[in-house]
């Protein structure tokens, strides 16, 4: 199971990193979500992997650490909200400028109204 989880985190991170370095907003946002999935699984694994044990201190000998689960919940909520925000801003930027490149356009500083060069 360790191998499965570790390779899942690794593949998600690699794919996410690749996507984040693309030129257009949509793949970058997809890459960001892949990275947040990776980090959520990583946080979950930081309390060690335990199967079929209660996440609470009981009289039982085996229990799993409850804190990473709380951390992951917080992280999921935050990353969900953040992804929604970035999608909205990116959509606004795309619809406004009709261009979804992440980079700034090359601006001619000597042009009177600062228009983009073709």
């Amino acid at each position: 199971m360790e191998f499965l989880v570790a390779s899942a985190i690794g593949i998600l991170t690699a794919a996410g990193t690749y996507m984040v370095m693309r030129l257009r907003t949509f793949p970058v946002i997809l890459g960001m979500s892949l990275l947040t999935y990776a980090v959520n699984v990583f946080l979950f694994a930081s309390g060690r992997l335990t199967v079929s044990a209660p996440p609470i201190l009981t009289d039982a000998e085996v229990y799993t650490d409850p804190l990473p689960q709380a951390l992951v919940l917080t992280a999921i909520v935050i990353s969900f909200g953040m992804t929604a925000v970035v999608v909205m801003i990116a959509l606004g930027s795309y619809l406004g400028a009709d261009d979804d490149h992440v980079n700034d356009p090359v601006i001619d500083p000597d042009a009177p109204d600062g228009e983009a060069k073709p």
Partner: protein
Amino acid sequence: MTHWIILPVVLPAILAPFIVLAARYHVGIQRVFSIAGVIAQIVLAASLAWQTSDGTVLLYQLGDWAAPFGIVVVGDRLSTMMVLLTAILGLFVLLYSIGSGWDTRGRHFHALFQFQLMGIMGAFLTGDLFNLFVFFEVLLIASYGLMIHAGGNARLRAGVQYVLFNLMGSTLFLFALGAIYAETGTLNMADLAQRLSSVDPAETVGIRLAAVLLLMVFAVKAALLPLHFWLPSSYAEAPAPVAALFAIMTKVGAYAIIRVYTMIFAPGVAVTAGLHDVWLLPAALASLALGMIGVLAARSLDRLVAFSVIGSMGMVMVTISLFTPESIAAALYYIIHSTLAAASLFLITDLVAHGRGDLRLTAQPFFAGGRRTAGLFFVAAIAMAGLPPLSGFIGKLLILDAAFDQDSMRWIWAIVLSASLISVVGFARAGSTVFWKARSVDPEPDAETFPAPDALSYVAVGGLIALLVAHTVFAGPAYRYATATAEQLFNPTAYITTVLETPGKLSDAKAKDKEEDH
């Protein structure tokens, strides 16, 4: 246990929803509540700073659960000083945004402003790394809204870059937190500081990785080379009052570095030797040089100010990276100066934009209110470039003095001094082009003229400049306070014992259990 220390976080958290829900269509009421809230913040912050000024550490346990299991809010000299600085900056920025009418150019400015303050205050006061992450996200999500306030294509595009860069920073932060938790089993800063000494020196890979990842996250916030790329366009495109408020956001990164790398990964800790103490200084020197060269190369006034922020953050980080009590004290003095100077420069930039309509560094006809604006720019530029007689000069002197007996002294002195020279040239060029050459250009007969900015705008900028002057005049007390703060940072025993040994709910029962076990 005092409840006061949580109030700087709770107060804006209550005010902001109230402004959204009850005062949605009444900008007048929004303004009144926003200003009243910030003034209350200043009073609170001043009383907290006064309480901690004798070296006491204030602690608040949420739900009365003891650390390290409960969430704690901790106030020491450093936190309360930063909270006070934020509150004062917030007041002047708010006055400017009301005077210039920026708050009416889009919806929900005041609510977002309060949420932003909540995030910043929380980040300064939290005693727990995970809550530092949460408050980073609170201040970021509010800043995303403020950054694209009033809209426009250029601003939205810069907003996308800003949001994406910071989202990546947050993801890295979570990776670092996961690694720290996996290695030590705690995220409370005081507890971490204690447990790090018991980490097996042979198996430090995870903790070293986490230390570097955390430093990268904070360096993104502090806009340290090579992680500064988000800053110039976001700060230049953001509405001016927002950019002025963002002047404190880079300092949040600097604060986090000071806190984490003096207490948890302290200079003497063996497991993280050879990491940040080796390459933080070169990165800081490079960003100082790059920032000031950017000042010289900028073709518009807003970019120029944004690059000067990178440069002054470089200066702060150079000083921090020496990790001696003298250098941290100098850095704290310079942080206050740099926040006030950067904020006033951003506001002055907006005064220029208000009169001319654009910010390109070309000679254009003189505009209404230009004389006062020119005077303010002159003073603020002197402060930012670090010329006598203002606090930038004193701060730089302290920094050079702190670096005097270091091995890296030659590099620091050479780069700090030449970067200052470059920034003086850059600011002088910009000021003479925008304000002086304007005299020689005749206005076109059909050119539209703009009315002079509102008096309240000048009050706000003048207030910030007056604070800079006060920071210069009272440099002695300010530096003594900074020295005391640095001493407290390098002797964290009081902090750690206050956080870990204050009993909370069920602590008595636990202590009893322990006694019975023995």
